[in-house]
């Protein structure tokens, strides 16, 4: 039977991957086929998202303006029964970090997109009133969502379920915080997965999108079903046998369960909301706001008080509570720079800060211009902690003549190829199961890659995001927005760092990229990137 099925799949492999270009201004959607050579250059998901963003994202997009582009992409393994190994991608310019970034959407949303007939969705413009997008049978419907305004994620999804009269759908939706552009508003899937803690919800809200819903029964041919099932069974067995790391600090969750459930309903990131609460309590305790700005916070936050009203005011995004929804750095512009000293997680605040000279091959420094869009980190921190002990280990992979550190390769692969939680099955001693991923791609999609080619694709993806962010930073030639977070010696050091990084990154004094950068990345069709 399997042999028969494989033969059948060969006949059906002509199916095409589709991109939907959604223009919310005109409520139209153009559908194009993904060229097959893109699959070899970018694989899918995050890579194609970055490439399409480079093509479509206008210069200096501001969150509130329609120029900002949101790219949604199904991961390469979506729809192939890979379960926890598959994920979809959400790429845009995130409000909290003010940089282009990526957030992984765990669960079955990517599969849902494929069943609905789409692999990628590029959303531009802004709807006149709240809408939700229904992707169905390779078409896009723009449905009125005014009645969903103010509803929580779960309430919205329940109402949508009743409206479309189907239960077999996948969706991402935002809560009130996203509607009101809270900078750390996240979004969630119908399965309850939350993603995009640096403002995916605000990005969707800024376009008046309440939800993106997928339903359909589009065929997804599998190249080698028997081999794929055998490999998946081996991987799942290994994952179950190794056990899932204790990803959640149960004590903290227990203590802050109320905040967790409130932020979930409001559609705000849990950790950043906790930081905001603690920060507000500290500022109130030391009376910082009245000293700095002659204003007294209308908050009553302490360990004993119920944080619900304060969080609801943040989510409403109006009045004196609004600055708390802008994130610590922007709020500090309102509260005074002194207030940052009371922020509870300085390491989170300063993760864009780099004291050491920039090394383009050092992934740790890449966070300088690759602020993560708030991917689901819970699955990675545990293994990353183990892996870091081996970070001196050299990997067998080279990019442009330089041997990459193993840690860099790990980050590249895990972050750029959309492997979901496959990283959980990685050997903490340092072996990267790239071969497993290569086989998964081959058995499911039918594309054959060498391991080096996969690393190159991952590097290309990261580099394209890098180009987007450096372009934005470099254009602000007088006072890059990122400089405002530093003072005195810190600012001098950071400016020197930027100066040193420019030539290495391949951009000239006019902040235009040199052609060789594009050529090396095999995206010379996008040169010159002047927009």
């Amino acid at each position, binding site marked *: *039977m*399997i042999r028969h*099925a*494989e033969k*059948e*799949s060969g006949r*059906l492999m002509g199916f095409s991957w589709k991109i939907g270009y959604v223009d919310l201004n005109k409520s139209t959607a153009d559908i194009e086929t993904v060229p097959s050579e893109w699959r070899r250059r970018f694989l899918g998901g995050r890579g194609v998202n970055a490439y399409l963003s480079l093509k479509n994202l206008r210069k200096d997009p501001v969150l509130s303006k329609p120029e900002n582009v949101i790219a949604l992409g199904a991961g390469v393994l979506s*729809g*192939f*029964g890979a*379960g926890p190994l598959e994920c979809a991608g959400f790429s845009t310019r995130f409000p909290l970090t003010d940089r282009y970034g990526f957030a992984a959407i765990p669960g079955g949303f990517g*599969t849902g997109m*494929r*069943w609905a007939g789409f692999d990628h969705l590029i959303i531009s413009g802004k709807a006149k009133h709240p809408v939700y997008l229904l992707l169905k049978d390779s078409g896009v419907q723009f449905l009125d969502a005014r009645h969903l305004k103010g509803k929580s994620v779960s309430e919205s999804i*329940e109402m949508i*379920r009743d409206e479309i009269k189907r*239960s*077999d759908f996948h969706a991402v939706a935002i809560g009130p915080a996203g509607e009101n552009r809270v900078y750390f508003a996240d979004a969630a899937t119908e399965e309850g997965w939350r993603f995009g803690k640096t403002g995916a919800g605000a990005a969707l809200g800024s376009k008046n999108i309440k939800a993106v819903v997928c339903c359909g*029964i*589009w*065929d*997804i*041919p*599998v190249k080698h*079903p*028997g081999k*794929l*099932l055998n490999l*998946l*069974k081996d991987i*799942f067995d290994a994952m*179950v046998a190794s056990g899932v790391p204790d990803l959640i600090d149960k004590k903290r969750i227990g203590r802050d369960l109320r905040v967790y459930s409130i932020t979930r309903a409001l559609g705000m990131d849990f950790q950043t909301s906790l930081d905001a609460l603690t920060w507000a309590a500290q500022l109130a305790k030391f009376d910082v706001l009245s000293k700095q700005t002659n204003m007294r916070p209308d908050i009553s936050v302490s360990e004993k008080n119920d944080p619900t009203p304060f969080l609801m005011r943040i989510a409403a995004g109006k009045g004196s509570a609004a600055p708390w929804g802008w994130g610590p750095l922007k709020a500090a512009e309102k509260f005074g720079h002194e207030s940052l000293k009371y922020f509870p997680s300085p390491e989170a605040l300063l993760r864009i800060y780099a004291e050491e000279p920039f090394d383009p091959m050092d992934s740790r420094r890449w966070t300088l211009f690759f602020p993560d869009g708030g991917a689901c980190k819970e699955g990675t921190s545990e293994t990353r902690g183990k892996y870091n002990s081996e970070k001196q280990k050299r990997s067998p992979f080279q990019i442009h003549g330089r041997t990459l550190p193993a840690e860099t390769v790990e980050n590249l692969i895990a972050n750029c190829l959309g492997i979901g939680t496959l990283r959980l099955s990685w050997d903490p001693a340092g072996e990267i199961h790239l071969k497993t991923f290569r086989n998964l791609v081959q058995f499911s999609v039918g594309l054959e890659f060498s391991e080096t080619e996969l690393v190159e694709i991952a590097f290309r993806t990261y580099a394209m995001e890098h180009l987007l962010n450096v372009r934005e930073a470099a254009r602000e030639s007088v006072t890059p927005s990122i400089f405002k977070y530093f003072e005195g010696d810190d600012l001098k050091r950071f400016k020197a760092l930027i100066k040193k990084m420019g030539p290495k990154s391949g951009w000239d004094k006019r902040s235009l990229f040199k052609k060789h950068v594009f050529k090396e990345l095999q995206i010379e069709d996008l040169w010159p990137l002047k927009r």
Partner: protein
Amino acid sequence: MVEKILQIDPQKCTGCRQCEIVCAIRCNASGNPSVSRIRVFEWMKSSFFVPVVCPQCEEAPCLAACPREVIYRDKLFNRIMVDYGRCVSCRMCVAACPFGAMGFDMPRQMVFKCDLCDGDPQCVKFCYPGALSYTRPETLQYEHIRHAARNQAGVKAS
């Protein structure tokens, strides 16, 4: 003759639907659950999930309804099979099945039903919560006996 049956315990089903997609991949080389031989239904939006699959009835209505008598019982695996060489896709069997366990694949123009994967059901292999099992009939009640015994003894499941 393999005397095993596919047993479903809805109380253990989490609604992950991995069985659906694995079945579609194995039988149709397609990640499309609409052609899956096993389907998971959510009971009245209550997060209670019920997997439904052909129970290989002793007196099978599909077998009785088939006008060309192409549906037969395969005694090796104790299952109901379709002789696709003689089937005309009239879909009488689909209409007759009281469980909705038979379906029709439109692109291929053929009816489909669970064939127990020739004695190695993939849905069972991929059901990590243990809602599906392929066991001998005489051991069906063992799980319930163990559960009742644990309750009576006040012992928690390990």
